[in-house]
């Protein structure tokens, strides 16, 4: 008997989670490919998509945070050890911080480098700062460092989810999966 709502993530949260998971993967592939591509129109296009999708993440993450602040989220399962709960909370907070910080640091690079850029070829992105070569170099270091941090935290996040599913069998992963109707519980 649960007086609380069913301990599942809502449709909005699930949609946002998997949309952004896909976007982050696409951002990684686009960013890495663009960076290593020779200077050509293709390189510019790859960067344009990378930047546009990054700004989409920056927009969606606020919607996601707003959803979180206005909804009850499924509880950490009973029987979780305190250190595990602390790691889980830290990983989730880290992911939210990075989903904001990554696009912002990219935006900073673009502004400091003073590259004209239209989001999805649609509107000109305002510049955060004046052109500044040193700041651009610093922002690039930050962007790359944040990327490695994100990769590490994501690895923990994914390993944690798989452990819940295959080792603990506690439904923590299932409650973030779309409800296909064939879920046992």
């Amino acid at each position, binding site marked *: 008997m649960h007086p609380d709502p069913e301990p599942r993530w809502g449709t909005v949260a699930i949609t946002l989670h998997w949309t952004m998971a896909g976007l982050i993967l696409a951002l990684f592939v686009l960013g890495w490919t663009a960076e290593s591509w020779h*200077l050509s*129109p293709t390189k*510019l296009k790859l960067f344009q998509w990378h930047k546009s999708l990054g700004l989409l993440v920056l927009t969606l993450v606020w919607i996601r945070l707003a959803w979180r602040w206005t909804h009850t989220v499924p509880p950490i399962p009973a029987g979780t050890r305190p250190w595990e709960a602390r790691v889980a909370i830290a990983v989730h907070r880290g992911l939210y911080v990075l989903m904001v910080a990554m696009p912002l640091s990219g935006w900073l690079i673009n502004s400091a*480098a*003073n*590259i004209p*850029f*239209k989001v999805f070829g649609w509107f000109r992105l305002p510049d955060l700062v004046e052109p500044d*070569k040193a700041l*651009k170099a610093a922002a690039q270091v930050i962007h790359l460092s944040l990327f490695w941090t994100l990769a590490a935290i994501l690895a923990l996040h994914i390993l944690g989810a798989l452990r819940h599913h295959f080792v603990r069998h506690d439904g923590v992963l299932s409650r973030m999966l779309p409800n296909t109707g064939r879920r046992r519980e």
Partner: protein
Amino acid sequence: MRGVLVLCLFPAWTHAAQWEVEPQHSTLAFTASWEGEPFEGVFRRFDAKIDFDPKTPERGRFLVSLDVTSADLGSEDLYEGMGEQDWFDFPHFPRATFTTSAIRALGEDRYLAEGQLSLKGIAQPVKLRFSWTGQGARGSMHGDADLLRTDFGIGTGEWAQSDEIGRRVRVRVDLRLRRLGPG
């Protein structure tokens, strides 16, 4: 030094009315486009020998000489790209010149100068529309010319077929001039 060079190139210079550019009050700029967005660059170092009398425009002549590597695009990244071989190829072609062959009046204070722009080792005809105002020893000229970067081999290879960086470029000149000696 450049004056000597100009005299050698134009021994039959008519001396209708010679003007020199006041660099700190003059601009040589261009507008290109990046993913459809206009962006502007300026050339910091250029010089112009101008022989022009609005009463006899057909006898006028301009020789503009510029240091292509003095381009300021407001972005180090863009500047580096601009110097590449596919683009302006700074190491091989640091200079460009524009020499008029004919100037005619268009009415009011408007004129049209036809000439050759030599850029990246390629000379092509270019038309410069300009307005001229002069009073005593002071003059000013405002003009613009439209050109296709690909005519000059600017942006070769994949860039030639792409409008990521637009093919159309507008060059703009705003000169403040001082008359040299009596005409």
